[in-house]
């Protein structure tokens, strides 16, 4: 007897009789004895509900949540109360993939809304139903470029893309047999002249850049699309969707594919997941998009309805000939960001950026004023910026953590640079406290 198992002794007896066997063991008679498992698992004993609560509380007490001044792909934005409560509705939470559209219009409709909103933010013409995370979405964008180009097998990645994203793209490239080359950075941004040289031979399927980039710099991609398209090379932009409410969109830069992580759209930090990737493209590349896509249609009575469409692209139909092995998306997380975007709306999304911008620039100026920091690059930024410090970086960060602050992230490849981030959640008081702690340290 257990609360998740409704079977009584008499139920089991009646059911076995219908089946025509005499015991539960008989249901496993065909399993060769040599591979049967007839011991007890070496696991803990069953816990009551309160014991589970206590145990998680104990584990939780070993964590130290901090006041977050860090980003690097995970941003501490305001999460409206409404969102968490709505996505917990069991009609959303406990449904499967909407393969039976007649009883899945809820899921199908919000995915349609998600696609629509992501198109608005990115300036792209179509978007799929979401991806695992930003890094895997970028790897899929690389696979799309190679599949689209047919005879080209090389993809270029700017060194200013986040190293976390690069690491995943590299793994996919190595096993899929894609040649990955890196465009060097120049003063914190993608070296355009170097890139133009690298695409001269007409053998590059796609180029991946990002904005804001790994230093938080908003890169200027003027002229990139023209250069790339002249060589039939796809232009792929990794972009923070929250920032796209104010920054120039991948669509406006002339991108063929946009990708990134929707975590910045008010999702909890969640120790790295679940987040939600997005992958959007031009109309021309629509049939090359991997994963699920929802389209509008009508039912036999003429009622507007939504359905999974263009399924001929997908693994369950095309098997090894599919563009991707993607089966599930991050549906519930797509719902999360859809509700977030609905609540924040046109104005709220701009306000989030306005406030993050103000806070980040305030912190930056205060840090520079201490005389212990200097900007890595004097380039425009939004909510993240990289500074060098004359203090001992590791000691400083450790000290600030002990005081309850996650004071940025070390910039990889340097021993003195820190990437700070300020969202609209950070108050002036928190920033002032952080800076005065830093001053005391020095």
């Amino acid at each position, binding site marked *: 007897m257990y609360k998740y198992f409704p*079977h009584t002794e008499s139920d089991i007896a009646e059911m076995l009789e219908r089946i025509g066997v005499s015991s539960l063991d008989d249901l496993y008679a065909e399993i060769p004895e040599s591979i049967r498992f007839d011991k007890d698992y070496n*696991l803990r004993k069953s816990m009551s509900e309160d014991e589970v609560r206590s145990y998680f509380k104990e584990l939780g007490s070993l964590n130290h949540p901090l006041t977050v001044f860090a980003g690097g792909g995970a941003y501490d934005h305001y999460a409206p109360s409404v969102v968490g409560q709505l996505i917990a509705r069991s009609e959303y939470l406990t449904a499967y993939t909407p393969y039976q559209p007649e009883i899945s219009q809820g899921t199908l409709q919000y995915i349609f809304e998600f696609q629509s909103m992501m198109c*608005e933010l990115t300036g792209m013409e179509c978007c799929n139903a979401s991806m695992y995370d930003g890094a895997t979405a970028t790897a899929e964008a690389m696979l799309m470029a190679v599949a689209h180009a047919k005879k080209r097998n090389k993809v270029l990645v700017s060194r200013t893309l986040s190293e976390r994203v690069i690491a995943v793209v590299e793994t996919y490239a190595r096993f899929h047999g894609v040649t990955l080359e890196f465009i060097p950075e120049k003063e914190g941004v993608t070296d355009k002249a170097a890139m133009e040289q690298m695409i001269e031979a007409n053998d590059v399927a796609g180029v991946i850049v990002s904005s804001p980039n790994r230093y938080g710099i908003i890169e200027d991609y003027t002229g990139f699309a023209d250069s790339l398209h002249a060589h039939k090379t796809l232009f792929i932009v990794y972009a923070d969707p929250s920032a796209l409410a104010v920054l120039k969109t991948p669509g406006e830069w002339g991108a063929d594919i946009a990708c990134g992580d929707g975590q910045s759209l008010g999702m909890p930090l969640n120790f790295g997941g679940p987040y939600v990737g997005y992958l959007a493209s031009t109309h021309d590349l629509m049939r090359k998009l991997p994963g699920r896509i929802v389209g509008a249609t009508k039912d036999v009575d003429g009622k507007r309805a939504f359905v999974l469409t263009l399924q001929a692209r997908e693994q369950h139909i095309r098997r090894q000939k599919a563009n991707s092995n993607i089966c599930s998306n991050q549906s519930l997380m797509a719902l999360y960001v859809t509700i977030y975007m609905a609540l924040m709306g046109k104005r709220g999304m701009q306000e989030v950026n306005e406030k993050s911008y103000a806070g980040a620039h305030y912190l930056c100026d205060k840090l520079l004023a201490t005389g212990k920091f200097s900007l890595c690059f004097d380039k425009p930024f939004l909510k993240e910026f990289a500074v060098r410090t004359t203090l001992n970086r590791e000691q400083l960060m450790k000290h600030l953590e002990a005081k309850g602050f996650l004071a940025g992230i070390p910039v990889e490849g340097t021993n003195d640079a820190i990437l700070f981030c300020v969202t609209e959640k950070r108050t002036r008081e928190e920033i002032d406290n952080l800076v005065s702690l830093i001053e005391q340290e020095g």
Partner: protein
Amino acid sequence: MKYYNKLIFEISKPGRVGYSLPQSDFGNYSLADLPQSLKRETPAELPEVSELDVVRHYTNVSNKNFGVETGFYPLGSCTMKYNPKINEEMAALPAFTSLHPRQSEESVQGALRLYYELAHALAEISGLAEFTLNPFAGAHGELTGLMLMRQYHIKRGDLKRTKVIVPDSAHGTNPASAAVCGLEIVEVPSTPEGTIDVTKLEPLLDDTIAGIMMTNPNTLGIFEKEIPQIAKLVHGCGGLLYYDGANLNPLLGRCRPGDMGFDIMHINLHKTFSTPHGGGGPGSGPVGVAAALVDYLPRPHVVKHGDRYAVEGSDDSLGSVSGFFGNFGVMMRAYAYILSLGKENLKHAGELATLNANYVKESLKDCYYLPIEGICKHEFVFDGLLDKSTGVTTLDVAKRLLDYGYHAPTIYFPLLFHQSIMIEPTETESKETLDEFIEAMRTVAREAIDDPEMVKSAPHVTPVRRLDETTAAKNPILRYKDLNY
């Protein structure tokens, strides 16, 4: 209840807001200082709605959905078991949800310990040496597992092994994952009994074979009892065995993939370990390996030194497959499930799932065609109605079941039969629920004879009826802006 058919954009009115942000006092910093050339030209056309507008909209939209808590969900290969509430409560604890993934190891010891303990519980349940929890879903686990397989051969300098054997009954993700991983697919046929044809497998085995991907029980719900022989043959040729854990549920407490001879496997936490499917994700696809492959696991990898937990990655690691640690929130739910059941209850989940499947199968085989007789595991496949003379298809049966308040079974999969109906009841359903479902299936079979047109035009009472999928694919409308009704 009134049918609700509005999109969020259609209830938008300029000037409304649904949020509140604090006043900031940072002085004269303004986005206006950014060069215009770096800013978007026109604002994103997002909705402008009040908080109640949003709440009511998404509540009404949810009413057009069907979840496990709405009713019975016998969807084959998807293991739609009950998603316990305590799991949700634990996954929402701020002591975990507020952690930034780039915090120091010292400040996230509880999270790392949970990751480590769950990984080791899965290893015990699977009979394998170690797990990574980083992969985001089943298909992502498959891809990671195949990368591990290739990395193993590559690190041994055995570069010829570029083919992977996949049975013809496999999930579509198997061959697709192999292709993404750069492997060539070799298909092995099934016997009339639905299991791998060992005589046809043997000639395929040579020094170009990286390994084989198997599901056991397979997608027909049949246990591949030749597995010890298959393992011997594949290992004998230098290949590895990959276990697709989509069908692990019936083996809980009865049999472990590691003991069967598998070297690599993935587990769908959203199937066997009760985490919600969320309308298609987030899932989680942990991957386990035998001792010889531990060094190849992806980065980051969580280890334990004394009583401290640390994040490491071996030099031989295949690399990263995720931005951070995978879908951590899903792991918390799965661990709450394992702790709740404990060793004494977990072992009964498999046999009760198997009992339920066989009970439904035996109760319906006089009106649906059962192509392969015998005891199944957690699921089984009918090949359409027994009496096909009226032209009522599997699709029609599935749609008619919606009218009776059931989610349809998986249909037209596996591809071995033309009219597949794949049913998986799971262990959390009672005999009464199964009896009612059996009665509905029998009623549909009768209706197919008495009034075939009515079944062919089903469903009749769902929020919408059959959809025009052809036009949707021919003329795709994928966003609100392109909708001109």
